[in-house]
């Protein structure tokens, strides 16, 4: 019986440790569960009394901030379409066509993108967008995000596609399909779980980003929520805790909803994983 315990000690030990880590991850967010519903919220943790939606009412009167959410959605969806589409096509090509040096390409692009992710590259990006006459347009934000995220998306996806048997497309071709037909009819649906991971990842990245829209956009009607959230700063430039908390919650809901949806529908995980 004592030995029986040793097996379960490991399990119980693991459970306790996992729970502790879970608590560590949850703690910083606890405040967020209460503050939005507390009309007198401050930085301190307090159970709302009374529980109230008044913060949300105020937030919903701020058209600028609401439009920010809409803009975020526009830009994220746009960016995700480009990243998802571009990365799928490109990774598929990298995986399936006889392009020389295709392994090294993804690594090099990844490194390049690491430079471009830094703020130093915001200047040339601004200059390029300006040269294209696209300053203050959604499409500029969308394209820049897409460009920056694509290398990593391709890095993740190519590995995934490499792991999918080629016999799917081969059988389609033997059945009479052209390569493009085979791609759309057969490969694409099979790749979808991988694309979903990339899409969620890209969405989350764009949804939260501040710098790129900030540099590329000018008019307040186009600013995404990450910028619009500053409208909940007071005259003196300090955050208005109540409204900010409420808005943050609204602002967070789409990514959480997306995550829940995806993990319910497809299971959000790196199927087998990406490996060097």
């Amino acid at each position: 019986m004592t030995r029986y315990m040793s097996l379960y000690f490991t399990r119980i030990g693991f459970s306790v440790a996992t729970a502790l880590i879970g608590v560590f991850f949850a703690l910083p967010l606890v405040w967020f569960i209460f503050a939005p519903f507390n009309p007198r919220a401050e930085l301190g943790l307090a159970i709302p009394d009374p529980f109230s939606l008044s913060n949300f009412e105020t937030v919903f009167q701020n058209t600028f901030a609401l439009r920010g959410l809409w803009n975020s959605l526009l830009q994220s969806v746009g960016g995700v379409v480009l990243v998802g589409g571009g990365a799928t096509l490109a990774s598929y090509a990298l995986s399936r066509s006889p392009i020389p040096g295709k392994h090294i390409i993804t690594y090099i692009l990844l490194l390049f993108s690491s430079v471009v992710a830094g703020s130093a590259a915001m200047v040339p990006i601004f200059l390029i967008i300006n040269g294209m006459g696209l300053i203050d347009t959604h499409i500029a934000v969308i394209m820049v995000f897409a460009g920056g995220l694509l290398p990593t998306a391709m890095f993740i996806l190519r590995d995934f596609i490499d792991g999918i048997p080629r016999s799917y497309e081969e059988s389609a071709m033997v059945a009479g399909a052209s390569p493009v037909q085979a791609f759309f009819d057969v490969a694409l649906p099979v790749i979808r779980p991988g694309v979903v991971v990339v899409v969620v990842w890209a969405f989350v990245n764009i949804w939260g980003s501040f710098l790129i829209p900030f540099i590329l956009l000018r008019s307040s009607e186009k600013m995404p929520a990450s910028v619009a959230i500053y409208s909940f700063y007071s005259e003196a430039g300090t955050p208005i805790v109540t409204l900010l908390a409420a808005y943050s919650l609204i602002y967070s809901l789409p990514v959480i909803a997306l995550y829940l949806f995806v993990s319910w529908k497809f299971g959000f995980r790196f199927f087998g994983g990406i490996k060097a």
Partner: protein
Amino acid sequence: MASVSFDSVTKRFGDFTAVSNLGITIGDGEFVCLLGPSGCGKTTTLRMIAGLETPSAGRVMIGERDVTFMHPKDRKISMVFQDYALYPHMNLADNIAYPLKVRGESQEKRHARAREVADILKIGQLLERMPSQISGGQQQRTSLARALVYPSDVYLFDEPLSNLDAKLRLEARGFLNHLQRDLGMTAVYVTHDQAEAMALATRIAVMDAGIVVQYAPPLEVYRRPATTFVANFVGNPPMNLLPVEAMISDGALHLKAVGLATAPLRVTRAAAKALESGKSLTLGVRPEHLSLASGGEENTIAGQLFANENMGPEALVTLEREDAARFTARIFTDEMVALEGRVTLGFSSDHIHLFDERGLRLPLDHEED
């Protein structure tokens, strides 16, 4: 339907030659099995017919058409993949009808035809299911249905049964045998299971390291294996092989090896010419041609009992000789074969195979044609 022929086809991957100077022809309506160990180039050969690999040299013909560089979709072929390659996102009906879909058939017609084929293959009631919801045997039949849904010149099979368990494999094999009999299709069938090849083929191409070593009907391959490689590969359990020394006396051949006693063999004149006393040969006897003997007689071999597997209608008795070589006998009986210690196995001169030092068959008199 059409024939398939290879004209000096070679396929290299980088430095490695996977198929070398292949020149076989598969007649119209023939069911040819490519048989050989893993890595011998079977799949590569098949894929060259399908157009999924391009030969490095030579030509591939289907009927009168040179298809060497033709895209798979234009070849009028069907193929069953080892992993079935059923599309996980389509139900069985759509999977089966896919070749019709890419040819632009209407949804209605496609499904009608899919149902027809599915009914023949006894999966008609599963058409709404997804591939993940059916068993391995049903998956196998679905992939077969997909290959049959559309009339093709040639049907290709790449180890289609290897993922099935023993019983399903047997059942599917019978089914394919029946289908071939019914449709008279031209088929090329890759397998490394000799029983499958024996059961299905009209002709077997036995391959070894990229080369076809024998291309003949199954019983021919079984009865007169062209090389020790074929002898060892075809037959289950494989043929027992033993190095022996040749002794010619009185125009008859005597074989010498420790613990072995053979009756003098008459060999063909041609063979006799090539043979000299003292030459080392290989003697082969199939397990089913060995029986328990009391010992000491001619045409016997003796050794220590190594394993004794009683399995219903037959038993496999294996003895191990002093030189660690093993001999297995397959004894058809449903009695318990109880043995211990030293065992002697006997055989008849009629069932002896001989191979020269290069492994090539030496024709014996009793099989002269």
